[in-house]
């Protein structure tokens, strides 16, 4: 697995992140993710599961100590994302991304992933419908 030695497994926690409202997915966001634990991680996409009810994006994140951890990010359902112009080509394996979301309640290396930013600055919403609504 290639890594680009980039990275930083730091959590950026703040009120701004907390104002991002949860996704409307196939269930209440609160059932699986903890809004009090926002994460923002940079890494390399290792796998994409383009499946219902949520896509899952897996990213290798290299910590300051050089240790690589694979994180899973849950996004919106494939249909909603497709209508928004996000597809499998958008999230290719090997791409460097910064993913923002909220950690899984069980403390595992999984999170919701509502926002993906690429190295060239482009940003896409990978969350569910209500993520993309202004003023939410």
């Amino acid at each position: 697995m290639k890594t680009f030695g980039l990275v930083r497994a730091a959590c950026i926690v703040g009120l701004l992140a907390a104002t991002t409202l949860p996704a409307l997915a196939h269930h209440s966001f609160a059932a699986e993710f903890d809004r009090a634990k926002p994460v923002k991680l940079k890494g390399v996409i290792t796998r994409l599961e383009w499946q219902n009810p949520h896509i899952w994006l897996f990213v290798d994140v290299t910590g300051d100590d050089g240790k690589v951890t694979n994180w899973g990010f849950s996004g919106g359902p494939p249909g909603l994302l497709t209508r928004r112009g996000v597809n499998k080509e958008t999230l290719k394996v090997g791409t460097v991304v910064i993913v923002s979301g909220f950690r899984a309640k069980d403390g595992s290396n999984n999170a919701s992933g509502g926002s993906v930013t690429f190295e060239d600055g482009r940003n896409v919403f990978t969350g569910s419908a209500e993520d993309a609504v202004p003023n939410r």
Partner: protein
Amino acid sequence: MRNRLTVASLAAAAAAVVAVSLTPVRVAGQAPQAQASAAVPASRAPDGKPDFSGFYQAPVGAERGPRFSPSKMAPFKPGGEALFYEMRNGDPFHDEPRDFCWPSGFPWGFLAPYPVQIVQTPQFMVMVHEFQRLTRIIPLDGRPHSAKVEPSYGGDSVGHWEGDTLVIDTTNYKRWGLDDYHYVDPTKNRMHSDAFHTIERISRNPNGLNWQITIDDPKIFTAPWSEDFLMRAHPEWAKDGLFEFVCQENNRCPAGKCGDGK
């Protein structure tokens, strides 16, 4: 039931052809001004009824999430409030059954801001919601409610036309979640009782469909009450249609237990 579904599917296929052929007409007819739309009769089905076939989406956003407004509600009966607001108790299945791919039913799932496709025939109004593929096949032939079916998450619906308004009467619901109130207060779910009865009145709006839902829940409220929703038309979704939604396919974190199953 089998006959009913077969008839429905055949009729639906026929109506889908009609719907596709009418789509450009609807696009052209969606003038931004209500006045212009009123002056130009909207498309009609071959039987002369307004043609509701097409793609729609329930309201999205802060003001109008997928939930009912307290300001519209009738006063509670004694004990009604306790039936209406059910405390979440930490049991994941109780608190969020959809997390285990259980249905949300009507109106809870129907108000989710996903696409819904309507296919109209003279005999049935077919509504397929992308979320959970919630499907309603509503007979319009004047039949009464079925006396023999068990209560269900979507209830038993029958419809009829009153002029250009479609009226759908639904009874025989299970007690289940009413809407997504827990986004407002994560400690509670908002429920309807097993005496729940809904009346929908659907009519054309220049931007889609007016969808009035009357809530008649005599175990909870002192009187029926209504709320109006705009189901916004999205003719641009017709080219792709609905996408599949299979909750069980890759439901990775039920009850927040994601684990390390990578």
